């Protein structure tokens, strides 16, 4: 057994896990406040004033616009061509994702609501949407702002329902096109869906259980996938590139009876069918265990002790899926501060870059040059293609190519060679940022 952690080690460890990396100021703060009060403060982000970073984010215009406004201001190329519109180069749709990436990186580096930002990042990957898929380019901004952020430390069930109804997810996992095969309609006039399509699409239903709730071994069958897909028929988008808002279209909905995980959902439930599935899945014991396991992996180690996962799953169940309670149970557990898990986590690229900027006190405007380093390290923000999002297991991030890119980032950062990012006495930091120890938290 290794010796228990000293107070200083505990603080460094805590900040490595619940923030995007320690800074001298934050370390002092925990020292004077104490670990538990600091954690409790971080669990109430709405009470932490955060004007420094929000002033920076305010300058990123697109981040504050609705999906509808984004489509008007940064119109899709097809529309520009069809209507012969004259646009300024600044109206290219690529700015929508770029500014969203910049906002995320700025918040990771500068926000005082660090644990909240860590949780936003966690759920963004858990409920991944690929901004590169068609209309999603214009939908992820609202997804981040209106779907993920309001619930990141709230109730899991609310977050799950919000994602299920979000145009971004409906588009990404194709549910907006899932139609009752028996539907009697010439064409779904309320939507932009192409003519004469009939039949369910299993994509969302499968990932809802496999990735969002129960986990792949959580005890569902192919039959359940089909039944869940039937429940969600009619959960669609009014017009993805015109009026991108949630719509329940009763004509697309399968009105028959369904049986999901042994629970009967009577015929004629309409939109309630989907809500019942959300309730059923968010309260399922497999979900508690799956979410607890993923959170424990984020905060403790790639292979977290099962005693800890049990405790966290219990906190999740007993609080009816309260995310704060679950996080609290993990961070306040004895396992959290056990010497074995110190430096056990490899930083994801976002964590590595943000922690480097925080450690050296860099001034940054999150320029495209900085975002490119994240791409080269394998984490292009909001652009994970598979529905798993970016993985949270160390070995996936330390391939030779990625490690070399990380070392080169350290070299560039500490030579002040990254446009838009400045470090004082840069060269004195080279050894720290390029060190193998700095790849871990």
């Amino acid at each position, binding site marked *: 057994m290794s010796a228990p952690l000293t107070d200083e080690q505990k603080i460094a460890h805590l900040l490595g896990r619940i923030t995007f990396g320690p800074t001298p100021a934050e370390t002092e703060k925990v020292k004077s406040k104490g670990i538990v009060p600091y954690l409790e403060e971080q669990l109430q982000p709405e009470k932490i004033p955060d004007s420094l970073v929000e002033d920076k984010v305010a300058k990123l215009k697109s981040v504050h616009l609705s999906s509808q406004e984004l489509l008007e201001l940064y119109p899709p190329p097809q529309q520009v061509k069809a209507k012969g519109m004259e646009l300024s180069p600044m109206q290219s749709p690529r700015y929508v994702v770029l500014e969203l990436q910049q906002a995320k990186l700025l918040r990771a580096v500068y926000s005082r609501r660090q644990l909240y930002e860590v949780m936003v990042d966690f759920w963004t990957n858990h409920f991944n949407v690929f901004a590169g898929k068609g209309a999603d380019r214009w939908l992820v901004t609202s997804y981040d702002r209106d779907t993920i952020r309001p619930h990141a430390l709230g109730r899991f069930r609310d977050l799950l329902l919000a994602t299920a109804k979000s145009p971004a997810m409906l588009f990404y996992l*194709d549910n907006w*096109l*899932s*139609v009752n*095969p028996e539907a009697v309609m010439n064409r779904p006039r309320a939507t932009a869906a*192409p003519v004469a*399509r*009939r*039949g*369910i*699409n*299993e*994509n969302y239903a*499968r990932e809802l259980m*496999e990735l969002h709730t129960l986990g*792949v071994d959580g005890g569902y069958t*192919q039959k359940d*996938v089909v039944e869940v897909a039937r429940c969600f028929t009619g959960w669609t988008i009014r017009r993805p590139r015109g009026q991108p808002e949630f719509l329940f279209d009763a004509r697309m909905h399968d009105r028959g009876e369904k049986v999901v995980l042994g629970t009967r959902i009577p015929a004629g439930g309409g939109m309630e069918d989907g809500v019942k599935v959300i309730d059923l899945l968010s309260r399922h014991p497999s979900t508690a265990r799956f979410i607890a396991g993923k959170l424990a992996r984020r905060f403790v180690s790639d292979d977290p002790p099962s005693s800890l996962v049990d405790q966290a799953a219990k906190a999740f169940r007993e609080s009816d899926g309260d995310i704060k309670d679950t996080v609290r149970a993990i961070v306040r557990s004895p396992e959290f501060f056990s010497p074995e898990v110190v430096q056990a986590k*490899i930083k994801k690229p976002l964590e590595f870059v943000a922690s480097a900027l925080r450690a050296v006190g860099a001034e940054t405007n999150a320029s495209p040059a900085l975002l490119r380093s994240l791409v*080269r*390290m*394998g984490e292009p923000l909001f652009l994970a*293609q*598979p529905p*798993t999002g970016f993985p949270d297991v*160390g*070995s*996936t*991030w*330390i*391939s*030779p*190519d*990625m*490690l*070399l890119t990380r*070392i*080169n980032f350290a*070299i*560039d950062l500490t*030579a002040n*060679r990254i446009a838009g990012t400045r470090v004082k006495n840069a060269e004195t930091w*080279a050894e720290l940022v*390029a*060190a*193998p*120890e700095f*790849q*871990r938290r």
Partner: protein
Amino acid sequence: MAFSRRLFLKTGGLGLLSLGLPPSFLVRAAEGEKSRRNKILVVVFQRGGMDGLNAVVPFKDRSYYSLRPSIAIAEPSSGKDRTIDLDGFYGLHPALAPLTPLFDKGHLAVIHAAGSPDNTRSHFDAQDYMELGTPGVKNTPDGWLNRLLTENKSDRNPFRAVSLTQRLPRILAGKAPALTMTSIEEFRLRDSLLAPALQKVYANIQDPLLRQGGENVFEAMRILKTMESTLPPPSSESYPAGRLGESLKQIGRLIKANIGIEIAFTEIEGWDTHVNEGGAEGQMANRLQELAGALAAFYRDLGDRMDDVALVTLSEFGRTARENGNRGTDHGHANVMFAMGGKIKGGKVYGRWPGLDPGVLYEGRDLALTTDFRAVCGEILSRHLGQKDLKKVFPAYEFAGPPFGIIA
């Protein structure tokens, strides 16, 4: 190597020391002499689950057309946008046209109704199973390409196995060193003066993940540096734009460099066609076009060297036999594989056709599997790479039945 060899002979070795080059340079130069034309296996993974039924079309199976009213590819006949007849029963998707010369020359084989026997329809489990080489078993610690490498432990050359991806794929994870690289040109330190100090730091840490990572990085950079003068120029062959073409181009260059590469891996995404898959044209046709263009360019680029190369394609599962409500297909079961190489006995579609009648579909919906991907890969491993003990690579798989004879 030619440069250092000349220099070595001229100076009798000793002179090098007086030029300020360390003795390790001599060892390196000698290493270069060993480089040889070895056999190479290239694996291309198609992530997302390719729709094998539209890639290689069983146009004589009556059910094919009734199952796919809006996305089926028309029977071979004159005119464009039709299946390209291979043998009177199967035909290639028209976007795969660049592959027909290879098939006709007998250097491209098709294996139909092949894949992983596990019934999972999860992308992530199915990919893991295929990459670990143990369908149904998730906790296998290493990928099957890595197990292939550990058979010869003495050789630590990181170029033995190269993945042209950022992330190390599971198929190559394991004890033996394996390299990932996205570009040969950019695989260098941005400040070479720092190299010695950094190399030392990474070599002296306890952390095995970062120590091994650092070792591979610095060793690979060292080898590339010694080969600077002998590395063939980037190919002038026209590869299609996109990641697959770029990575096959880089793989081709590494093979021609005789850098000791035995295994290469790359991947192409975008096969998860739940919606608007398209038929002769459209979403999947675009992917197939990129695939075929890249494979054909690689084949032309390597020329005679294709005799040393066997390339196989894998995809985690096929797709539903029936099209869904969105002119797409959902996750299914058996798929199609391609094998390409100078010694591949191509010009033929291998595998028993299970049929598409409703009564014989797997779980009532998917193409049934008649060939385990391990049977195909195993045969290539033993005949092409001389792998004797296939059990080490594919544990728990019984290599029963007569060989395919897919490779000479």
